[in-house]
């Protein structure tokens, strides 16, 4: 009898504990409001997101953003360093990106190769990227290695070895990467040239990859100084999303990062780059720039000045870009790609906003045998007529629906959430800024979009037309 009771009790115990169940606690899971309240609306302001974020700034300046998401027993770990090519000068261009590579080359405690073993040996994956404004490191791992990752990341924030032999090997690797992304890529050449011309005489005027001369000459000591100056807790934001208890993770972060000193170089650099005049547009527009490159048919970028992240006009330009080329029914695709006598293989519109400035550009690729001048003239004509013909209430609703889809897609994974939260924290010091963004987008009217369109295409001196073609003169 006693045995029977024991077995029954044990069975209840195992029924409740067995199996690799994920917690399905909707309070701790990202979702679109409670089930009862899940009305589906066309209005962005009626979206209710359950994003519960813990934020703390440590005494050394490190900003920590944590979000519990118990959907799966994994986590994403994002480190945003607020340093990119914008902090470089002639002679050390490419250093931010070079350093991104070198961050995987080991510390005293975690020698070369051990970082990859920690990540991959635990079933995770990681990567990093560098932009004009930022360098971001990210990984996805099972939750059981959280403490180890915090320790490893904190260690490489302060104790990077930068051994000379590894430095030289990585120099060779980056020179090969440069060929892959720029020298052998017509689109890479196009984009790089466009940015150089648009941002000439501003801190954004260099390339992220760096010039060949600088890549070949930059020294280990120069890059090490760059590391010590800018890889510091007071220049970093840590975002962690996953299946953990925020209090425990915060304790661990404070334990491993708390002793790292702030860098005294960060604030003077920020101050030296805070004057908006440094970033005012000085590019010469209303002209053509032609590059001889690896494109059998011309590819182009037609660039116009735009505004920095967060400016209301930037949101209007986002909508305009989508109306112009954001789907098969969009204006330029119908006029130049899908029409009876198409001129273009493809066309795209981007409002490329940075921390201090922006550029709005139309890019495309010509179909075989089409004339570049004819294309440019047609494009200019259609951009002007778009302001009158392409913008109406239906098009605005269309872009809002697409915006809503892409918004929710970002939130499906921990990595998407971490990237989403980190971007808002970096740019606005506020992870809730998306609510403000919804308000702005909802308030934009067809008239406002049309006015910005006319301002850009009708009244100014024209854009900067950059093209790459193997038949352009060298």
């Amino acid at each position, binding site marked *: 009898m006693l045995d029977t009771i024991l077995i029954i009790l044990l069975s209840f115990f195992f029924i409740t504990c067995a199996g690799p169940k994920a917690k399905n606690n909707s309070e701790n899971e990202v979702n679109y409001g409670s089930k009862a309240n899940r009305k589906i609306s066309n209005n962005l302001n009626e979206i209710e997101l359950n994003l519960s974020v813990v934020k703390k700034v440590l005494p050394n300046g490190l900003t920590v953003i944590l979000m519990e998401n118990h959907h799966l027993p994994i986590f994403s770990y994002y480190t945003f360093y607020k340093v990119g090519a914008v902090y470089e000068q002639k002679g050390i261009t490419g250093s931010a990106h070079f350093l991104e590579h070198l961050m995987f080359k080991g510390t005293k405690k975690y020698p070369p190769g051990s970082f990859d073993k920690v990540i991959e040996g635990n*079933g995770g994956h990681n990567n990093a990227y560098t932009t004009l404004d930022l360098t971001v490191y990210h990984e996805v791992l099972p939750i059981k290695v959280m403490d180890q990752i915090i320790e490893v990341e904190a260690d490489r924030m302060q104790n990077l070895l930068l051994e000379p032999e590894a430095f030289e090997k990585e120099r060779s690797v980056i020179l090969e990467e440069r060929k892959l992304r720029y020298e052998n890529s017509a689109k890479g050449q196009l984009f790089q040239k466009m940015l150089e011309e648009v941002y000439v005489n501003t801190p954004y005027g260099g390339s992220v990859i760096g010039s060949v001369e600088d890549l070949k000459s930059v020294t280990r000591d120069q890059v090490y100084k760059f590391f010590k100056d800018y890889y510091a807790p007071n220049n970093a934001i840590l975002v962690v999303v996953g299946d953990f208890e925020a209090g425990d993770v915060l304790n661990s972060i404070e334990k491993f990062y708390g002793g790292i000193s702030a860098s005294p170089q960060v604030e003077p650099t920020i101050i030296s780059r805070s004057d908006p005049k440094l970033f005012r547009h000085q590019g010469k527009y209303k002209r053509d720039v032609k590059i001889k490159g690896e494109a059998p048919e011309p590819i182009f970028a037609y660039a116009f000045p735009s505004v920095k992240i967060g400016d209301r006009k930037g949101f209007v330009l986002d909508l305009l870009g989508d109306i112009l080329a954001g789907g098969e029914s969009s204006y330029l695709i119908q006029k130049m790609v899908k029409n009876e006598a198409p001129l273009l293989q493809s066309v795209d519109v981007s409002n490329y906003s940075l921390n201090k400035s922006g550029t709005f550009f139309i890019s495309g690729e010509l179909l075989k045998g089409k004339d570049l001048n004819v294309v440019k003239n047609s494009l200019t004509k259609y951009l002007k007529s778009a302001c009158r013909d392409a913008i109406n209430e239906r098009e605005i609703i269309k872009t809002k629906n697409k915006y809503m889809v892409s918004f929710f897609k970002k939130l499906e994974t921990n990595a998407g959430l971490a990237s989403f939260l980190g971007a808002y924290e970096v740019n606005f010091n506020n992870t809730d800024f998306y609510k403000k963004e919804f308000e702005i987008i909802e308030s934009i009217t067809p008239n406002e979009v049309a006015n910005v369109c006319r301002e850009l295409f009708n009244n100014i001196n024209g854009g900067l037309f950059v093209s790459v073609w193997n038949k352009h003169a060298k």
Partner: protein
Amino acid sequence: MQNRFLFFFLLIILSLNSYASLSEKIEKFVWDDLEVVWIKDNRFPTYALTVYFADGALSDNPAFMGETEMMFNLLTSGSNKYSQKQISDTLDFYGASIDTQVTHEYSSMEVSGLVKDVVPTMQMVCHLFNNANYPNNEIKNYKEHSLSALDGIVINHSALANRIFREVSLENTPIVRPTEGYKATIKKIMQSHLRQKLDYFNRQVSKRVYLVGPDTLDVVKKVLLDDCGWSGMSKKEMFKRTVEIKKNEESGEQIIYLVPVPNANQAQIRIGQFLTKSEASEENLMQLSASFLGGGFSSKLMQELRVKRGLTYSASAYASAQKNYGRSGISTFTKNETIKEAFNTIKLVLDDVSRGKFLEDEFQLVKYLAEVIYLDMNKMVIL
């Protein structure tokens, strides 16, 4: 005796509970002989609906290779009721995306968007499956774009290397022909071919539907059965592609193709082979081997080529199987001056690995990575 019964009862409950907790969010239905697999996800008001078709580019007449892919790509180009502009305007208005993928043995189409608009979106999709008529001007337009894109491959040396490698490594197999076709075959595809192909895929090819989205997605059942007319589409008598591919046995022969590209400053390297069904049958072992050779940064090729010697930015290995065949290969690139060193390094790695000259902990690391990723992906799909 009673205790033993209870003990085994406990074990059964244990295993059932374990299984139930893993599969609780996957539901399988048969809607009037249409198989549906639904992963319930109530987190967001979005959906993804994927239709799997049990046939692909192997159904193409070799003279018109590319017709299946063209048929799917031009599905939204016009119907007996709507123009391309009207169709794309409707789909864009609902924020819907349609992505199609054609392989040799199967095809798939994913429709995604906001749940609030799934009915009108899928009604449009079903209308197209039954009424798309492939206007000639749209076909002409598509051909112009495709041919222009194919001409552009020559400047993308990586894509060019992939294309050439495909041709030489799959020679004399039915899968040597790329799913998008060749310039010569694309030019020959006519409206009648596309309409016949659509009719074939719509009415004769076996289908299964995969749904990801909230409970409210059940509205799509009526659309699939009534508007698409896909009742009975998973019955066994519906067509499913099977193919037997034999390899030309040239045991031990290694063939090297050198393709000169004027002014290239990097060399693309592709090494590999075609695998028959029996050679590709041990899928887990193949994936493990590929990861060990050229998966992440800790893989042998990345360590030897990039980390230790700085010869390349990337090196990868793959070994994958379709239903009836597989492929294995290594892909990397290096500057012209170090081609010989790169080759010697790859050879060294392959020789060492094939002789078991690697550390046990190197192997355990990759094994664990494969195991955890597999479990992780399972969990991500199921939960």
